[in-house]
């Protein structure tokens, strides 16, 4: 594994420089490009394609690119995976037109091409503007089942922006799901951590429809949530205040192995008094209020990296890919975010990654979609 990155203001030049650096590794079999959403996708492709030649190329836009130097909202980071013990197959399909499940299933088919390798994973890059993330992953799971773990994230736009992009081969896409099946003779480690902890009494989701929570404990969801958190009066009345308040106060869906975080800061249903999450919050389930602070979130970042490394079964990590939720930086602030990245970056371990609008990681159970979480793929 090799990485390269450039913060050149010209996206084509940045992409070319980053890839040239990353191509220094042994027999590259896959190129993954994390591009600042400020880049023009065609320019990025123009910078990557000539250098990439026939090497499979995937990538997507991100609010900020994670590099060993820290975060940047400009430029491109590239990782190349290669070597004799590695097989890669990529695939892409469009989600639009109610094809989320079908697209997920179609992309997952590429896993068959790496079936002979002992360790496998499917790296998925989805579009953060697609609301049916879980349906995509259901399609994927329907094909691969529990046989391989999943890792990845959703492409994000610039802060406040409305454009994402994805790259597959020489093509720029949106509303797509892109997959890279990675088969390796060396172990692959996947971990996810968020750093929030539950507090108070749990609440029962008494009425929900997918990600739309209408009542908690048989009470209107939004006001119950705010009341339990002791929110200021403005948060009940002003959707902007609500958003800012809720962004760092996710709810946790009770799981056997902990809590899955759900970001409920969307004000789309503020008028109706409902909470909305892009991920499912099942009716009948328990949810918890979750508390996090800078230190716990920072600690989680370190723990995620350690867990991914540990999952290699004693092998030293050759490198890592990080998929970190955009919303985490809301609680960390600028300085905290810098410290989080510093926690992620291990001395001597090449790592690049992206800030996502939803994280993908599955090692256990069936659920693979997460919010406010840091997911790490470590390559042994």
């Amino acid at each position, binding site marked *: 594994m090799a990485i390269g990155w450039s913060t050149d203001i010209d996206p084509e030049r940045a992409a070319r420089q980053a890839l040239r650096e990353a191509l220094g590794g042994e027999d590259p079999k896959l190129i993954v490009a994390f591009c600042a959403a400020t880049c023009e996708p065609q320019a990025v492709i123009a910078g990557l394609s000539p250098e990439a030649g026939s090497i499979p190329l995937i990538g997507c836009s991100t609010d900020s690119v994670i590099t060993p130097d820290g975060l940047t909202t400009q430029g491109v980071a590239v990782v190349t995976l290669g070597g004799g013990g590695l097989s890669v197959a990529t695939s892409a399909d469009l989600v639009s037109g109610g094809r989320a499940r079908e697209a997920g299933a179609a992309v997952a088919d590429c896993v068959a091409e790496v079936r002979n390798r002992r360790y496998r994973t499917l790296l998925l890059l989805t579009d953060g503007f697609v609301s049916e993330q879980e349906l995509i992953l259901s399609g994927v799971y329907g*094909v*691969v*089942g*529990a046989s391989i*773990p999943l890792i990845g994230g959703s492409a994000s736009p610039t802060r406040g922006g409305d454009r994402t992009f994805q790259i597959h081969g020489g093509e720029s896409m949106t509303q797509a799901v892109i997959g890279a099946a990675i088969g390796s003779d060396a172990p692959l480690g996947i971990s996810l951590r968020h750093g929030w902890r539950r507090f108070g009494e749990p609440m*029962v989701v008494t009425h929900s429809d997918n990600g739309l929570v209408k009542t908690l404990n048989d009470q209107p969801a939004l006001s119950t949530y705010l009341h339990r958190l002791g929110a200021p009066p403005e948060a009940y009345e002003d959707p902007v205040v609500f958003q800012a308040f809720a962004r760092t106060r996710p709810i946790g869906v009770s799981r056997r192995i902990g809590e899955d975080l759900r970001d409920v800061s969307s004000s789309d249903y503020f008028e109706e008094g409902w909470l909305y999450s892009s991920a*499912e919050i099942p*009716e*009948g389930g328990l949810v918890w209020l979750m508390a996090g602070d800078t230190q716990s979130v920072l600690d989680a970042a370190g723990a995620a990296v350690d867990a991914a490394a540990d999952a290699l079964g004693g092998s030293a990590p050759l490198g890592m890919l990080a998929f970190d939720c955009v919303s985490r930086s809301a609680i960390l602030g600028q300085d905290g975010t810098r410290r989080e990245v510093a926690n992620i970056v291990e001395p001597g371990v090449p790592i690049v990654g992206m800030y996502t609008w939803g994280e993908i990681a599955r090692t*256990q159970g069936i659920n693979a979609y997460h919010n406010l979480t840091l997911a790490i793929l470590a390559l042994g």
Partner: protein
Amino acid sequence: MRTPEAPRSTQRLGEFLVFLSSVSDEATVVRVAVERAAIALEAEVAVVLGPEGVVGAVGFAAGAVPAAVLVEAVLNHRFRIRVPGAGLCHLAVAPMNRRNQGYLLVARSGVDGFAADEVGLLRGMARALELTLETIRTLAAERRLMASLRQRQLLLEQISNIQRAITRRAPHQEVLDLITLGAHHLLGDDVVALWMCDPDDADMLLLVSTRGLETDVARRLWRVPLTEASVPGRAMLTDGLVVASPSGLTRAGIATDDADRIVAAMAAPVHETGVVVGCLEVTSRRRSRSYNAGDQEILRVFSEQVSLAVTDARTHEAMRRAFHDPLTGLASRTLFTDKLDHALAAAARDGTQVAVLFVDLDSFKIVNDSLGHAAGDALLIGVAERVRSCIRDCDVAARLGGDEFAVVLVDLTDERPAARVAERVIEAIRAPFLIDGKEAFVDVSVGVAIGVSGTMCGQSLLGNADLAMYQAKRNGKGRYEIFHPELRTAFTSRLDLEADLRHAIERDQLVLHYQPIFDLASVEVVGVEALLRWQHPRRGLIPPREFIPLAEETRLIIPLEVWALTNACFQVSRWNRQRTAGPLTLNVNLSVRQVQRSDLAELVARTLAETGLASERLVLEITESLFLQGTDAILERLRQLERLRVRLAVDDFGTGYSSLAYLARLPIHMIKIDKSFVDDIVTGPLARAIVQLGRTLGLTTLAEGIEASDQLDALREAGCQLGQGFYFAKPLAAAEIEPMLLNPCWSPASAQR
């Protein structure tokens, strides 16, 4: 606070059911069930096993579901299985039906096995899945059953077709044919016939629609006696459905000469507003055909459709009559107003304009009075036809009543097409009408109003058009005017003025001004002309040209002139008593309406008597337009005045009706030469000619509007006897003119000094 764990399984089961109920096919239900079970129990694997093996699974790679392993695990009650990618997993199994022919199972990695509530949840899910699958299978069976009910659906379709035809006002015959066709199609019998009572003879039936009957038979049977049509006859007489088997068939309505071949027949009565007016009959020649309850129901439904169609048609006809003018067939005022409102609404929606034409015949009364009411009606029918010929199908013409018509023009972008239609209507109606072999001529005045999108209701638009029509009449008839807001302002102002004028006498606002009349030879005052003025409290002194036409239109001229005559006579009589010089003459204007009153002579005589003015001092001025009336009654009235020794003058001579004949026929004593001729007397010959004419006929000539000495000289030279004008004096109030009339030394020259 409820305990958190208690509702969890129950509610998750509810959620599971919601997901299952959202899909309707068996394969999708199974897929959703395994996915939701895995999610709810946080398991890597969920599988539905059926008697034949794996029905659905999630958690294994596609095509790699270890069916045999799973079956073996279930049958041997294993608690753990190995799942690729997840390792050794705990297994939980729930039977799906009482016969244990199916199972829902889940497998989960991790240290802990499934808790009791989780197993309970899994059992609930299995039961829910079983019920859902059973329901879907039952529904599939019902769908097959539904196919057998397609007949009923066909019936509904046929009825729907008929209803649509009735609703869209399809021709009545078309609706009836649709009904017989529908019954024929659905019952599959040989012949369907619809019989209706002959409106001229209730004992006869008319064959109004049929399907399946040979043409020649249908022609023979077009009208049959009710008593000879046994099945239809019985259905109508008993007001109920009649079914006849072969043994009961004597004669079917449609088979009077075909009875041998008829196997079965039935008929159901048709009603119009509850009264039997016909029946629908079907007959079959099919061997062993009999009509069961379902067939009878179908016939009953179709006969009800006929009843609906017949009643609707009659209602529609009644409505048509209510909404149309019975004489001309044009829309009535009610329908017109309705259509106009709709047109305005459509125009507001489409951004177009609507125009209303108000069409009023100018001299309909003459035709009606002279040729009779029948001729008047014929004329109105003719006018309606011509109006209709001038407009498009989408426009609407109406007769509002009497001789008033109106037209709505739709889909306009500006007023020009409306103006063109108005011109066409005027031209079309101007052509002679041939009524009872005689030619009749009428003109129309047309008012046009344009509806501005969304700002106007139909009534006000019609009102505007009416106002424009009124203006067209005022402007000379046989023409059109387009409404503009100033018309309404003028109209309102006129209404106000009219209201004020009605009170002018009682409020003492009228005054008389007098203009002296001079003997041109001696330049002495010999008379005065009394001129009416209106001292309006707000508008000030209103000149006659502004209020006299209004007074004439509203007939207020009659009391005004009586007032003027009385007061002027009284004033001049008083002056005459005070004058040392000879008595003055008094010229007073009389309108046509005044002359038309039959008691005019009495009025004048009474006034002279009351005021003491000598009758020979009074000169009544009439206009040339009076002679257009030319009736014997008016001639007699003028002679009565002459007998009173009152003199008559023709005012504004030469400006109007240019016939000299009346000068010889009527008792005229004086002609007043209009100012327009006096203005030209120095250079033009007309005034001189008029003076000469007067002299020839022995009439006194009086020149109006003398303003300069050279005019005076010319008139004097021409032989004109009398004159008035600003050269001498303008009209003055009584008090102002009095010195001129009572001072023997007064002369124009002294006045100018």
